[in-house]
């Protein structure tokens, strides 16, 4: 029996968080995917016996923390909880089981004690490759995007499922690396299982379900207290994006009633024919955006969701029909900004102007003298300003991916980065200025045409300012000084050709003093 006082709860909570942190350390260090190791594109979590989020790794990519529990629950339901055995590891990358997009693989391991499942541990990481178009936005359905693995037992009672491994390996461009990533997920989860079992060995009286109730209850109360402080009402906003075949708009209505919030995306543009649709990331970024606004100091878990209802119209950009392409689900990155816009009135000190999001990506693939290479390079724009603080230049917001060092880029792919500079003055003007974007010039040193994919945004629609602050400078993408016609497309970069990219600046906050004077 445990007495759940302020000290006991704190101790159990911290210990569970450290399990997720340790899992992430193993995943980060043993994964092969460059986006995982250089850009931290991963998440680790501990879930309750009924699949609810209990704790997450503190530096998880935000989109995963809102989706990992749903994916785990859907996977367990598909396979049947009665069919789970100690030593099993389940995995899927299927967006229709709550997964974000095909390149991300979610692995879930049940934690058994005395023959019963007492928890699950889960890890997600971006694989080195998933076949098909992989990250590219230009695919027109899920099948074109790559290999889709429905929920399967990746490991059965400790024995790797060789059939699944062989099928997966045959469907990706760099099989050794992808299997290495899979093993990294398995190792991270195995460590999580060991740690939780040890935690209960140390304190056999500890009831995890009871702990979860207290942990989630504490977070829920904090979130509800914050919501109650917002006057009841409907708060609306919208935000424009470049889209793919046409510009897209996200519309949101945040309805506050007492200590409950309903977020409704009615009015949002219809889904795209291309891969910019967002299925589960819509939920992930809505939960993350609200967490920043309502309870930034409170660790995230199931409790944070209880007061929040999310409604997304079917067939829209943020809730596409089954089979739609979702690989470059970047519009979802604008969700925290649109929520900030909606809640500016009641929460002027907590909201932030839009960031120059999402991060831009250049994917490089080809064959060099020492084998195939596949590099995914991320470039961040400027952060949005908030009341009292200007936005930082080139800071990943709301996602959290690092850049790849220039020296690492040039060591792994036949390209030369000629310069990488901050675009001075590219942040939105205002009382507090938005963060500045960056300009990168990259030249191909390859003897053959280089297969390049682009993921960009905010070339036509800049990051809007807030509370009178100005818009950030829009982005720019050129090859040999001509604007790229399809900035979310794929191209063959000729030997010696140059790409110039300028990531967008963040929005400013508040009227500048000069404007105030007027």
């Amino acid at each position: 029996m445990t007495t759940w006082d302020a000290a006991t709860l704190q101790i159990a909570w911290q210990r569970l968080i450290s399990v997720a942190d340790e899992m992430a350390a193993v995943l980060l260090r043993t994964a092969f995917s460059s986006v995982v190791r250089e850009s931290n594109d991963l998440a680790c979590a501990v879930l309750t016996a009924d699949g609810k989020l209990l704790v997450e790794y503190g530096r998880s990519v935000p989109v995963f923390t809102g989706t990992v529990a749903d994916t785990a629950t859907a996977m367990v339901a598909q396979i049947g909880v009665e069919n789970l055995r100690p030593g099993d590891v389940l995995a899927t990358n299927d967006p229709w089981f709550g997964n974000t997009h095909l390149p991300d693989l979610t692995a879930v391991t049940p934690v058994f004690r005395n023959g019963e499942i007492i928890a699950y541990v889960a890890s997600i990481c971006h694989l080195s490759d998933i076949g098909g178009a992989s990250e590219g936005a230009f695919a027109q359905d899920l099948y074109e995007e790559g290999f889709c693995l429905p929920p399967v037992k990746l490991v059965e009672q400790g024995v790797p499922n060789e059939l699944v491994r062989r099928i997966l390996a045959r469907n990706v461009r760099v099989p050794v690396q992808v299997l290495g990533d899979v093993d990294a997920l398995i190792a991270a989860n195995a460590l999580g299982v060991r740690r939780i079992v040890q935690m209960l060995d140390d304190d056999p009286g500890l009831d995890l379900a009871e702990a979860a109730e207290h942990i989630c209850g504490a977070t829920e109360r904090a979130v509800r207290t914050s919501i109650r402080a917002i006057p009841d009402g409907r708060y609306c906003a919208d935000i424009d994006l470049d889209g793919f075949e046409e510009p897209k708009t996200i519309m949101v209505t945040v309805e506050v009633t007492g200590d409950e919030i309903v977020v409704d995306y009615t009015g949002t543009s219809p889904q795209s024919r291309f891969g910019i649709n967002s299925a589960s990331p819509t939920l992930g970024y809505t939960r993350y955006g609200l967490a920043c606004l309502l309870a930034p100091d409170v660790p995230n878990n199931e409790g944070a969701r209880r007061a929040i209802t999310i409604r997304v119209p079917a067939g829209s950009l943020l809730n596409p029909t089954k089979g739609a392409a979702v690989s470059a689900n970047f519009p979802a990155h604008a969700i925290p900004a649109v929520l900030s816009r909606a809640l500016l009135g009641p929460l002027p000190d907590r909201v932030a102007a839009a960031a120059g999001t999402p991060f831009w990506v250049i994917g490089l693939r080809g064959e060099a003298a020492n084998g195939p290479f596949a590099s995914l390079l991320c470039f961040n724009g400027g952060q949005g300003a908030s009341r009292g603080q200007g936005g930082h230049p080139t800071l990943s917001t709301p996602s959290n991916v690092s850049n790849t060092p220039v020296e690492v880029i040039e060591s792994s792919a036949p390209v030369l980065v000629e310069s990488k500079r901050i675009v001075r003055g590219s942040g939105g003007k205002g009382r507090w200025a938005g963060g500045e974007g960056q300009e990168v010039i990259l030249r191909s040193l390859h003897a053959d045409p280089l297969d390049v994919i682009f993921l960009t945004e905010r070339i036509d629609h800049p990051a809007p300012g807030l509370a009178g602050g100005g818009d950030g400078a829009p982005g720019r993408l050129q090859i040999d000084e001509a604007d790229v016609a399809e900035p979310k497309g794929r191209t063959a970069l000729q030997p010696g050709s140059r790409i110039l990219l300028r990531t967008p600046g963040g929005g400013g906050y508040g009227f500048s003093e000069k404007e105030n004077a007027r």
Partner: protein
Amino acid sequence: MRVSFDIGGTFTDLVLLDERTGRAWLGKCLTTYDDFSRAVEQGIRDVLDRAGATPADIDRAVAGATTLVTNALIERRGAKTALITTRGFGDTVDIGREWRYDLYDQQLRMPDPLVGADSRFEVTERLLADGTVLTPLDTDEVVAIAEQLRAQDVESVAVCLLHSYADPMHEEMVAKVLAEHLPGVPVTLSGHLVPVIREYERTVTTLANAYVRPVAGEHFAQIEQAIGRVGIDQTLMLMQSNGGVINTPGAREYPLRLLESGPAAGAIGAAHLGRRLGLDRLIAFDMGGTTAKICVIEGGEPAIHNGFEVGRVHRLKAGSGLPVIMPVVDMLEIGAGGGSIAELDALGLLKVGPHSAGSRPGPAGYGLGGDRPTVTDADIVLGYLDPDYFLGGQMALDVGASRKAMEEHLGAAFGDPLEAAAGIARVVDEHMALAMRVHATERGHDPRTFTMLAFGGAAPVHAARVARILGLSRVVVPSAAGVLSATGLLVAPPMVETSRTMLARLAHWSSPAATFDALVAQAAGELAEPIERVERFVDMRFVGQGFEIEVPVGADDGPAEYWDRFAAEYERIYAVRAQPDTPAEVVTWRVRVYGRFTRPELIRAAAEPAAETGQARIRPVWFPETGLTDAPVLRMRSMRPGEAVTGPAILQLPESTAVVGPGDRAELDEDGNLHILINLAGA
């Protein structure tokens, strides 16, 4: 005789050792911030006096550790510094790595770069990743830059060009031009200081070295003069962050290697004590006023980690400081010490730290104006600290003030001050245990097989309980805990470490002899004395991975040995067995070159005052197993070696208090170290 000093934030510690008898004399002075050498001079004179020795008796190099380098960086009191980069990359220090260390904080702070945009210069040149020249260096531009540097009165220059880890040739050419046109201004080259891949971290590291170089040089000169004034005719050797000492010319060129000088000396001191006690697996646990430090020592050597973060700007959060690539004794710092404030957070949970009451106003129980409850206040309320004999009786404690602070700030969650104090102690002890468990297991160790070495004001109070939580069976409180760092200085060999990045796949094996020879030659030059032994290491990973593991290798090892050693270490740390055909590569090559050194016998920190006598008193003390219970309070100096005390008991040490839990057994050994055997069975 040998003498050593450790210039710390508050005190400068000294040890004088007569290696013929093993006898040591300890000294302590307040650190003199206006001129650090004054405390060193005064301290040396004092210990010589007390030993009845003369300056001429010092027949070995004087060894020292100093906090100056860290202080200069944290307080931004370095030189007017300029940075020269490859054209197109002057903004690297502003751009950083583009990630957020706190996901939910929309207003996080980032550290300012060490140089502003007006002191950053770009030069036309370019190397490729393999070190070949794409664009030759434009030396005319460097001449023009030199003029601008002179106009700006720049005192120190950092040069960091892309891919200089592969070949420092262009950086060396820049240095040559600057030497000619800007004589007397020190120039730090990244390709010499840290020839490793990743330009942001390498630039920050090079800049940090350049930034502290002039002030460090002055500091070393002052200490040398002070030693001369005392009349000691010996050279000065300084402790580096990796646990080896270096001569002053080396330290002057690369002062950043002294970044964690004092803590490294402490770890070496702890390792030495462990060797003497026959304990080769130690967790050194140092808990002071604002933070605690944890270091794992295995096989008599502290682990070395190749990176460090300086000057975290936001609540000690990892990622909020400047990342420096430098071999540093692998130490975990936690924002919880005796002065850490306990409070109820937004969720109503009890949080301890990272805010600290420091020494002013200090814990409520100090009676110096503090009114927030701290860890020390909890220790007072629980009866662990004696109100009438704190710090050997130098300070009286106000129990009422401690209780009042608990009531006022924690009353909402706890019925009475005792419950609140017990809660604080539990949170702190569990926090320490968790940090140690993670730190040890991440390195592939089982903490239960280690002995805890507890030192610093607050560690002996909490060590036995933390050990019990971890399942550790023995705690040792060293006799000369206060001068462990200064002791470490006497037993640290001269050592220089050099490394460089050069990617090499095992499948394309070519003998690494030339690579290692070049590193040894560079290290030998810096060591400036005969080499006694060379250790070779490589940082390896599987092809495609981004994190490396350091593996020791032999001079004659081939690719099969490299692979086997790496795979074994990989499995030990991550519990993952690699497929035998998985391709692997070496990323960084490293040597440690040691000078000749005889480790002195250090038997006992002798010359203690006569053993105190006195009857044991009885005081109510709280333990989780017993609640409030009467426990004897003993002065450690009145105990005889080998005489065991069974807990519950409180042992008062000269600089701290050891809490012995119910059923634990405490006894002194012949050297005056206190051993506490934890009663795990009765837990």
